[in-house]
Structures are given as C-alpha cells and as structure tokens.
C-alpha cells in the first residue's frame, strides 16, 4: 500500500512538473510585459514551441544589441478558443501585459479582436492568415504575415499558369485558418478560370488521420491540382496517402506545407508538394538566425520561426518608441507606434496598411528535394 502511495505521489509530482513545463509563464524580468498566447501543449504544440524558440533567440539578440528585451508572459491555448480566451483574461487582467506578440490561430484572433479593441491591447501575429481578419480583426490586430486572400490568389495564379485548371480541395473544417484558406482559394481559383465545383471540396475534422475515402472521392473529379487546407501532420498524411494511391499531385499549399511535421509525415511524397511562401530574405541576419536556431534546438527553423522573430522585433520597436515619447507605455501607445512600423526583418520589409495587414508581401515558389529541404522553383 505504501509502495502504491509513493508511486502515485511520484507520478503526481511528475505530472505537476509536466504541467509546469507546458505552462511556462515568464521569461525575462525587467522589460515591458508582453503576452504570447500559443499552443504549448496538445496536438498543435509545435506551433507554439517554434514561436517560443524564435522569441528566445530574439531576446538574446536584443540583449546583444544593448536593448532591453520584452518580458514575455506565455499563455497556453492548446489552439482552443475557450482556453485562449481564458489565457487572454489572465494575461491582460492579472499579468497586465501591454500587448501580445502572438495569438496563434486565426479563429482565436477573430475571437480576441473585439476584446483587444475594448481593452486597447494590440495583438501582433506572425501566424494568423485568415482573410476574415482584414475586416474583422479590429483596429488592434496586426500581422507580419500576408493574408491568405493574397497568398491564395498567388497560389492559384501559379496553378493556372501551369495549366492546372481543374482543382479539388480538402479542408479541415474545425480549423479557423483552413476555413479562411478555403474561401480565399476557391474564390481566387474560380476568378482566374479554374474549375472547382462545390462537390470538389471535402471537409474533414481535427481527428482525421486516414484520408483514403476522401482521396477516392476527390479522385473521381480527375483533378489536375490538389489544394490542401490541412495543417502540418494532417497535410503530410494526406499527401502521403494520396501518393500511395498513385496520385502525382501537385499538392498545393502555403506555409501549412512548410512545417517540419508535414515533411516528416509526407515522407518521400513531399516532392509532390508545391508551396507558395513569403520570400525568405537571403540576408546575413536570416542566415545567422537559421544557424542559431539549428544549433540551439537541433531543428531547421521553418517559416513560422522567421515570422515570430520578426513579430518580436516589430513589437520591441513599437514599445521602445512608445517609451521614447515620454508617455506611459500603454497598449494604445504601442498600437499607434505599430501603425507607423517600417521595419526591415528576416522576411522582408514590414509595413502595415489601413487594415493593419502586411503591405508589399513578396512570395516565392518552392517544392521539396525529398530530403526535407525546400528548393525554389520558377
């Protein structure tokens, strides 16, 4: 009995340690408190962990530049809107953060938009690409990543240019980003002369891992282009299972196909993916960031890491300018400075338009070499 009790206590202690690990709160004391609502546990934890890794490098770089790093306070959303709302309340009302450097998930950002405007707390994102955020994100939502309204158009242009005029789409209907991707892609593809009838769009859910029936159904449409509105692992499994049925693709996507989990799950079928991504600036800073990331975390950074790094420095710049103005650093002051942002980041120049969307987004076309490395294509 004693042994059982001891074992149970040990397991309980371990679980508390695990929970604490997934719910890291504060990072660096001293700077202005800025929140980050990320999925740090659950099925989508890789998003949050990648962003957190990038922030850690950004903090070190800020210190090296003689700047005071932001005091990041994390909230774990598990990519769930209810959890995110609870974390938002905790960070704003208990931790008194002046802004957010991330609120991962377009659905979450849409839910937080009105609250952020009410509380005058700016939210900056390097992940949320839903076109709905342009009109419904509110005046306090900014993003350093282009809207899918734009990336979807660019992706469809690529498909049409290559003569792929009949397309199908698989989409995770439970994912806010995927729903935005669906609306952006279908309208852009149809506008450019592509054929994608409503029965060529098939919805799946978060839990789907076996896509064989969906693939068989979509295959009946004899598509030339397969648009993939699934994230990381799911997208990889879809492409891998389609390839196993002899489908050559191409499978088109945006940064959802740039996740390392896509590469792992797709395996050899990764070469059939076509990705349209914001240009990776081949600057010394980007190369240095990649090297630091690889050395510290034993993984190549994906596009999410670059965007997170840029988001951190855009927020830091806005906070510093708000401090210099002599006024107390409030969310409203940071928002005013964010509006005037003109920052040269790892992913290019960051400026915001009237809707706080990124202007002048540059895109590049990629596929994979079969070993997980992206290779540019014309």
């Amino acid at each position, binding site marked *: *009995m004693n*042994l*059982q009790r001891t*074992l*149970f206590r040990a*397991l*309980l202690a*371990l*679980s508390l340690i*695990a*929970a604490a*690990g*997934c719910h890291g709160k504060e990072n660096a004391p001293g700077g202005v408190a800025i929140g980050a609502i990320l*999925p*740090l*546990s*659950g*099925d989508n*934890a*890789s998003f*949050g*962990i990648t962003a957190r890794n990038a922030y850690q490098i950004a903090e070190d770089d800020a210190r090296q530049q003689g700047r005071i790093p932001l005091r990041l306070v994390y909230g774990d959303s598990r990519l769930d809107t209810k959890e995110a709302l609870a974390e938002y309340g905790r960070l704003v009302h208990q931790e008194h953060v002046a802004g957010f450097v991330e609120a991962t998930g377009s659905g979450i950002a849409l839910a937080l938009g009105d609250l952020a405007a009410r509380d005058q707390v700016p939210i900056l994102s390097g992940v949320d690409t839903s076109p709905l955020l342009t009109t419904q994100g509110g005046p306090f939502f900014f993003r350093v990543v282009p809207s899918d309204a734009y990336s979807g158009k660019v992706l469809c242009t690529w498909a049409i240019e290559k003569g792929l005029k009949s397309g199908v789409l698989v989409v995770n*209907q439970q994912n806010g980003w995927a729903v935005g991707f669906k609306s952006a892609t279908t309208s852009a593809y149809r506008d450019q002369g592509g054929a994608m009838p*409503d*029965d060529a*769009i*098939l*919805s*799946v*859910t*978060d*839990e*789907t*891992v*076996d*896509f*064989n*029936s*969906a693939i*068989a*159904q979509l295959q009946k449409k004899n598509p030339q282009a397969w648009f993939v509105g699934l994230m*990381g*692992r799911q997208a*990889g*499994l879809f492409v891998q299972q389609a390839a*196993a049925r002899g489908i050559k693709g191409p499978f088109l996507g945006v940064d959802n196909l740039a996740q*390392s*989990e896509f590469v*792992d*799950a797709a*395996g050899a079928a990764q070469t059939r993916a076509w990705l349209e991504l914001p240009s990776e600036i081949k600057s010394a800073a980007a190369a240095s960031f990649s090297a630091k990331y690889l050395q510290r*975390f034993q993984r190549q950074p994906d596009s999410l890491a670059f965007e997170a790094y840029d988001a951190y420095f855009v927020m830091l710049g806005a906070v510093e300018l708000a401090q210099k103005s002599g006024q107390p650093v409030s969310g409203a002051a940071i928002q005013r400075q964010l509006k005037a942002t003109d920052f040269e980041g790892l992913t290019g120049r960051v400026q915001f338009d009237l809707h706080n969307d990124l202007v002048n987004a540059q895109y590049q076309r990629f596929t994979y070499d079969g070993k997980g490395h992206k290779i540019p294509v014309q």
Partner: protein
Amino acid sequence: MRGAYYLPIALGFALVARHGRYLPLWLPECGMVSSYTAYFLLERADMPALLAVVVALIFGSACALVLHFALFAGHIARNEPFAALLRSIGVIVLLDNVAGLLTGGYSLAFTRFPLPSNHGPIVLGGGILLTVILWAWVNHTREGLGYRSVSANRELAIQYGLQVSRIDFLVVFGGGLLCSLGGLANGIRYGLTAGMMSTTGLKAVAVVVAAGQENLLTVAIGVLLVGILESLCQGSIRFSAFEPGISYGVLAVGLAGRYLLSPWWVRRNMRKRWRADNPVPEVAG
C-alpha cells in the same frame, strides 16, 4: 481497413475491462508508450526494425503491468470502478504530457520502418486472427475458464483456490500487449503525437461499452463496422464532417439496442426454458 487499426486496442480493452469490472481508459495509452519507444529505438538509436518492435511491445506491456499493479489493482480488489476511472484520466493526462515534453510538442513519423505497400490486408487479417485466438482462449481453454471465473466473481474464485494473481498478470500483460500492438500499428501508419491514443482509445471504448466487454466477437465486428462507417462518411461530401461522431453513434445505437432488446431476449429464453421443462403432452387421436 481503418477499423483493423482499432481492433487490437478494443480487444485488449475488453479483456481487461471484463476482468477488472471497470473501464481501463488508461490501457490504450500503453500503445502510445510502445509507439514512442519503437520510434526512439528505431529512428534515434538505429536499432534493427524487428528488434525495436519486439522491445517496444514488451516495454508497452510491462508499462501496463506496472501501472495496473501500482495504481489500479487496489481499486479492483475493493471493487471501486469510479475511483479507477478517475485515476485512469490522471494517468492519461500524465503520459500525454510526458510524451509532449519529450518531443517538444512535435508530432513524429517513422521514416525507417519498412511498411509494405499492401499492409492493409495484413493488418486486417492479423486483427481477425487475433480475435479468433483470443476468443478461443477465453472460451475454450482452462486459463480462459479461470479468467471468466475471476471476471464473474473474484471473491468466489479466490475461495475456490484459483491463482487469481497469475490470471491478473496474464490478462493485464495480454491486454497491454494488444494495446501496444494497436498503438504501434497506428503510430507506424499515422505518425506519433502526444495524445495519439486518446481518440482511438475512446472509439474502442465506445464500441466495447456498446457491444459488451464479454462479447469479443461482437466487439471485433463493432470496431470494423466503425471503420467502415467512418470511411463511408468521409467519402461523402455532405456527411464527411460527421466522421468523428460515428463511434459515438455506434455507442448510442448499441446501448439503446441492448437495453431495448435485452428484455425480449430474456423473455424468449425464459419461454424456451419453460417449454423445455414443460413439454406439451401429446393428445391421443
């Protein structure tokens, strides 16, 4: 085919559930333990595939034994199914968090496992074979009789001198092995994530509850049916979004069916027995 991936988990779960007279929700997690073990042995330690699989299966089963005797055996002895259920949930949360921490939250995929292209029929055939073997063991062997006796009345089985602890060991090891096998098959086919067995495990649980843990063949048919229905649902443009609800639909229909039909079965069997005991005398012409 996808039902075949649920099959070993459902069988293992049914075996242990009947034995302990509770819902061992934690048991499918041994599949995750086994799957991650195989991944690290194969992909990180460069162990040969067959050896990695065998070690992972043994480790998963051993994990089941340790968890059972450390956390659940007491509840079973004291007939506390709800306490065991709550503890099961705690174990699931713990194991999922540990897996998440070990992998930095990233999902993983086997890259070095030589999965044959026609693995579907192999998994299905293997699952059916497992079902038949397990059914035969439970219903037509001496150990199976002991298992059924302990499941029916543990106290009485102890009084009759059955080696209950040996049966406990065999059943939990067997259940753990089946769940490890199912978890490994799922991991190889669909990749590994922390919490990978939660959904699959719940589907198996739904079927076992609906079919009844004592009916192994019905459980097997039930999980295969869930797989078929999920595939049909996903292949329909209109109904594809309802795919995750299939197992819960099967649970609802199964439970309703059992409750509605059971009085009918009872009445029919009683009538049969009464007629057998009271034959109608032949009337002489």
